[in-house]
């Protein structure tokens, strides 16, 4: 099967180590993949700002870059959600349909298909699992706390076999962190407050590292951590699974 790896624009620029660890992990567990050249952005920031009509070019570019692959794996639940959910506004050619049906978040893909092949790693830290809202309520990787049934983080199966890890559940485990793409810039006061509240929740519970499958949430939280010099770190879950030291 021809698999493409899609690296979100902000990861490429700001967190290349996440892309590197993801690729290293994919090789370790035996996923063969290509990284198509000329990747840009899925267009979500434009569309979420009310400029879907100006994102159409970006949509077509994304489809042209990835549409020939049987499977596209993206290092983001949020970006892959956008493609699945909102690429319905362009003509539904065979390529577009295939892309929308087969695009998956890399973390979810590994969890579903390769969980038994993950390398044995140790992570002697107090970790809180942050579930991005688009992964949770958009892609439905897990059950959200609103739905009237017991729930836990959908990332739990991935960390169950990690040695020495201590998972800490926050008071409001699936409340939004406040990123929301351009929301974080337009309404920065509310956005920063939401992030700060989440970080306070984590600090009060003795968390050392916030781990997520969505780096965009973590980018926002990391910005607050650094500004306030808080005793916390953020890591993508694939870095943890790859055995990267903190």
């Amino acid at each position, binding site marked *: 099967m021809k698999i493409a790896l899609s690296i979100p*624009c902000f990861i*490429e*620029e*700001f*967190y*290349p180590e996440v892309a590197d660890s993801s690729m290293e992990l994919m090789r370790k567990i035996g996923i063969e993949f290509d990284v198509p*050249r*000329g990747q*840009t*952005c899925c*267009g979500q*920031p*434009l*569309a*979420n*700002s*009310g*400029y*879907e*009509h*100006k*994102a159409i*070019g*970006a949509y*077509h*570019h994304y489809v042209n870059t990835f549409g020939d692959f049987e499977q596209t794996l993206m290092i983001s639940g949020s970006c892959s959600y956008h493609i699945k959910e*909102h690429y319905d506004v362009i003509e539904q050619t065979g390529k577009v349909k295939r892309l929308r049906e087969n695009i998956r978040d890399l973390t979810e893909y590994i969890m579903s298909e390769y969980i038994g092949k993950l390398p044995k790693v140790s992570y002697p830290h107090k970790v809180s699992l942050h579930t991005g*809202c*688009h992964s*949770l*309520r958009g892609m439905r990787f897990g059950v*959200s706390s*609103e*739905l*009237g*049934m017991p729930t836990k983080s959908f990332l739990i199966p991935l960390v169950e076999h990690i040695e020495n890890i201590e998972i800490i559940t926050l008071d409001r485990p699936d*409340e*939004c962190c*406040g990123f*929301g*793409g351009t*929301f*974080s*810039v*337009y*309404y*920065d*006061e*509310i*956005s*920063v*407050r*939401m992030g*700060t509240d989440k970080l306070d929740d984590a600090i009060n519970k003795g968390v050392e590292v916030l781990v997520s499958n969505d780096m965009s949430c973590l*980018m*926002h939280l*990391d*910005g607050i951590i*650094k*500004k306030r010099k808080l005793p916390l770190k953020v890591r993508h879950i694939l870095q943890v699974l790859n055995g990267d030291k903190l």
Partner: protein
Amino acid sequence: MAIDFKQKSASFVENKDRSAWHDTALWFVRNKRDIGVMGVEYWEQLRLQASNIKTHCLSNLDKYLVEFEENALKNGAIVHWAKDGDEHNKIVGEILNKHKVTKIVKSKSMLTEECELNPYLEKNGIEVIDTDLGERIIQLRNEPPSHIVLPAIHIKKEEVSELFHEKWDTERGNNDPQYLTYQARLSLRKDFLTSDAALTGVNFAVAETGEIVVCTNEGNADMGVNITPVQIHSMGLEKLIPKRSHLGVFTRMLARSATGQAITVYTSHFKKPKPKGEMHIIIVDNGRSERLKKEGFWTSLKCIRCGACMNTCPIYRRSGGHSYGYTIPGPIGAILTPNINLEKYSDLPFASTLCGSCSDVCPVKIDIHNQLYKWRQVIGRNNVLPKTKTIAMGMAGKMLEKPGIFKFAFKMGRIALKILPDFIVYNRWNNWGKGRKMPEIKKK
């Protein structure tokens, strides 16, 4: 003037203690709701059923409205139709004039807030007393509600004590909620006894029986209706449900979603006038039938006004209801208001991270966050946004199509971040940098 959510919410959140207290109070309600909902094993099926009933009813609204009117008339009620708020207010005014009413008690009606009935009646020399505690408090403060179920949630008990002292000469500094409630009760009892008419809202109107149902915790609707000769019930035309047997689906959901209670303390059915009394039902459109025509947006009419989307919304909880500048705030308000005035409320659909919690908590499964997204597109296409935003977004759109330019732009950005001193990067135009550090550029 357009509502400036950004500025209003920023000033609300600036007062850290107050906004944290507001957030905690509403999160507490959300938690109570979760516990209530957990007790219903088939909650998700119930949501689906409620959504289906509402969808069916709204799709056949013409038929059910006629059926409701026929049955209500048979029961002896007088039915009025109001195309907008002004017409509604006039009808109320005429009923009250006919009976020479100079004072009226009101309970449970967000619709009359929407129609701005109080100022209209007061202008015409009629005294209006809101009888539900929260609404009475904000009426005394001359403020709009900040929440549809908990209208005075933004006010602390110390402030209520101060207010009552000022208005009713109660004990200064007595902040005991029981004492304060009792004082309100004493004052309201007098109002009930000296009013000649009562107006209530409507939670559900049953087409099959022509009855209306009002769900309350304080019983003021019952008190007003039973103590005064003239009763008026104002309802939006979307309040209809086809059959009485459908009612159980909604009463099980309404209170649980609103406050976590299994059911409201009172579920009052009003079907026919009292002996020698008059019962009026005013069916109000006020833009609803226009909304019903809107592809992608009409399902917002399913709303049963439980307020759960407000309690769960992380932005509402930290911004306060008044930041939305409309009677119905929060996520549901943000998808209702653009129908009323796209330009005025164009900021509201953007006041969300699209986290989807509102859609998941909604008992009638309105896809609120999707509608927020869709409203953003309507606003973007209609160029209601500031020009600077439009130009920047247009440039970004072109960039994302062309990897070469995209790389170049990121590269320039990288260089800028590296060489410019912090005071330029963190200037007042850079909202990211005010509360956060910029991400570090790690790529060569």
